[in-house]
């Protein structure tokens, strides 16, 4: 047995992307992205050409995992929100539905108050989308595209 897979379909992806795009505008953010708790990037928006979202995704997940570990030791629920203030960039990290992590990077054109407000709304929307996504994944018949691969397909990956 392996873990239940995380799966993303086009329909839900588009919904998530729409939320993230809107959050960039509404919160005057530089970059917004969503990561799963294992550090896989799910969606990103804003000035993403100038940041390494893959690295940020993995570090964000590590960060949430570490603070989650601290919370456990203190018999606390997970710390759902984190905020780091830098000289130019600030970063707001929000755990959504204990499943995914919503990250907002912003500068002085925005404010913590505004970001908090917009993140709250976006989190609710995202929660709904991920819930229906999970239901869909749990349905039987949602076949993996990998069910049909052959040994040869796998070998070919390594032949260069």
């Amino acid at each position, binding site marked *: *047995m*392996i*873990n*239940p*897979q*995380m*799966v*993303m*379909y*086009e329909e839900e*992806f*588009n919904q998530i992307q729409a939320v993230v795009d809107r959050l960039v505008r509404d919160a005057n953010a530089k970059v917004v992205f969503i990561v*799963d*708790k*294992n*550090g*896989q990037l*799910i969606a990103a928006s804003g000035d993403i050409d100038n940041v*390494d979202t*893959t*690295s940020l995704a*993995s*570090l964000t997940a*590590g960060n949430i*995992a*570490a603070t*989650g*570990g601290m919370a456990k030791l203190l018999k606390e629920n997970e710390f759902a929100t984190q905020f780091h203030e830098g000289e130019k960039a600030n970063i707001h990290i929000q755990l959504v539905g204990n499943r995914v992590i919503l990250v907002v990077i912003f500068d002085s054109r925005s404010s913590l108050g505004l970001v908090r407000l917009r993140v709250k709304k976006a989190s609710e929307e995202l929660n709904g989308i991920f819930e229906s996504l999970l239901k869909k*994944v749990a349905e039987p018949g949602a076949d*993996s*595209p*990998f*069910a*049909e*691969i052959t*040994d040869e*397909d*796998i*070998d*070919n*990956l*390594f032949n*260069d």
Partner: protein
Amino acid sequence: MSFINYMAREINCKLVYYGPGLCGKTTNLQYIYERTNPDAKGKMISLATETERTLFFDFLPLSLGEIRGFKTRFHLYTVPGQVFYDASRKLILKGVDGVIFVADSQIERTEANLESVENLRTNLAEQGYSLDKLPYVVQYNKRDLPNVASVEELRQMINPTNVPDYEAVARTGVGVFDTLKAVAKLVLTELRKGGT
């Protein structure tokens, strides 16, 4: 936990390098990083102490190519091997799809190897995984050193279930890609079985 993204047409899997302190986990990743085309890799991140011991993890994203129109991406992580970082090791194991156990072949590290495999088994079990059911390979590293145990001895101690195992000299790259390919294959084979 693999992540299949139908929209981006890609699949992401998480591999974890486990093993005692100084066995060469970070060195494995460094070699892979050096020898991979720029377009197939992302930045390597090392959260390390001032003496270059892994403090939390190393991370290296790799893409291996396409299968049936899906990009296969592997996220490689190492754990901190020092005994007292156990809490961090548990966190890194979350959502793992495949494990590489790197053993230090030196005779004086026998105890440390055994302790680390046991620790791996315990930490996986705590999260509801069984080492026997997970894609898993073993690497006997530092074969270049004079004071090493024989592969037969190591196998008996560290690999009683006979999973694929490889001799390696991570510093020069011997066996590094063989090990990686072996576990990647096992993970993809597991995916074929359905995964859920």
